[in-house]
């Protein structure tokens, strides 16, 4: 099944960072949520988090707007 949340995180992260090849998303399934662990080059961390976390927050807002066919929440975790 296509994973729109993952696609969205990868698209936005790759568009923001300098090192697009270093962008990775690891998906962890839990009972009531799906966790997306995003990792980027350490030098690009600020670009995906943003000032006061605003970039990460905007991405989370889009994730919550996706709607979940399986009733699971999408949680974004940015690994540092």
């Amino acid at each position, binding site marked *: 099944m296509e994973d729109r949340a993952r696609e969205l995180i990868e698209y*936005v992260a790759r568009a923001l960072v300098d090192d697009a090849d270093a962008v990775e998303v690891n998906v962890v399934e839990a009972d009531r949520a799906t966790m997306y662990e995003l990792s980027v080059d350490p030098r690009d961390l600020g670009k995906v988090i943003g000032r006061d976390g605003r970039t990460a927050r*905007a991405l989370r807002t889009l994730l919550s707007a996706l709607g979940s066919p399986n009733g699971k929440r999408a949680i974004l975790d940015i690994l540092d």
Partner: protein
Amino acid sequence: MADDRDQAPREGALLVDDDESRERKAKRSRDDDEALADEAANVLEDLLDIMDIDADVHIREDGDRIVLDVRGPEAGRAIGKKGQTLDALQFLLNRIVNRDADEQRHIIVDSGDYRERHDKSLANLAEREAKRAIQSGRTITLQPMSARDRRVIHLSLAKFEGVTTESSGEGMRRRIQIIPTGAPRRSRR
């Protein structure tokens, strides 16, 4: 020693050059704007596509501003609750297209007349609460709002007799206070 007679024509020549370069620059910035608008529209279309939102993106001419208009049967999903999705799309889009730019060019994401209607309803709310502040003689504190929405309210009450406005609180919790003038300040929470 500089020769005045030699300098005068040179200055003139420089001025002509300047005019030409200004013209070229203006032309170039128009072309740049068009390229930026196209790039931004493409990115926004990609985002809507990934989010499975059935809507198209139109570039709207609006003076100096670059406005992307989201239209289609599912445009409402792109707006989201209280415009949250639209704001998030706009924020990320600006981060993406201005990534390497020396000069930031702000792009507005709208859907039909959503932003205009939203601003009008903010102005209505502001006026209603300002009247309430005057009648009660008490300071009224509004809900937390984005910097943009707070600015709309500050501006809409700038010429409203009998009240002044201030923002208080930090970050996401920053709220507007509508303070009646000519009355002792009493905070009402």
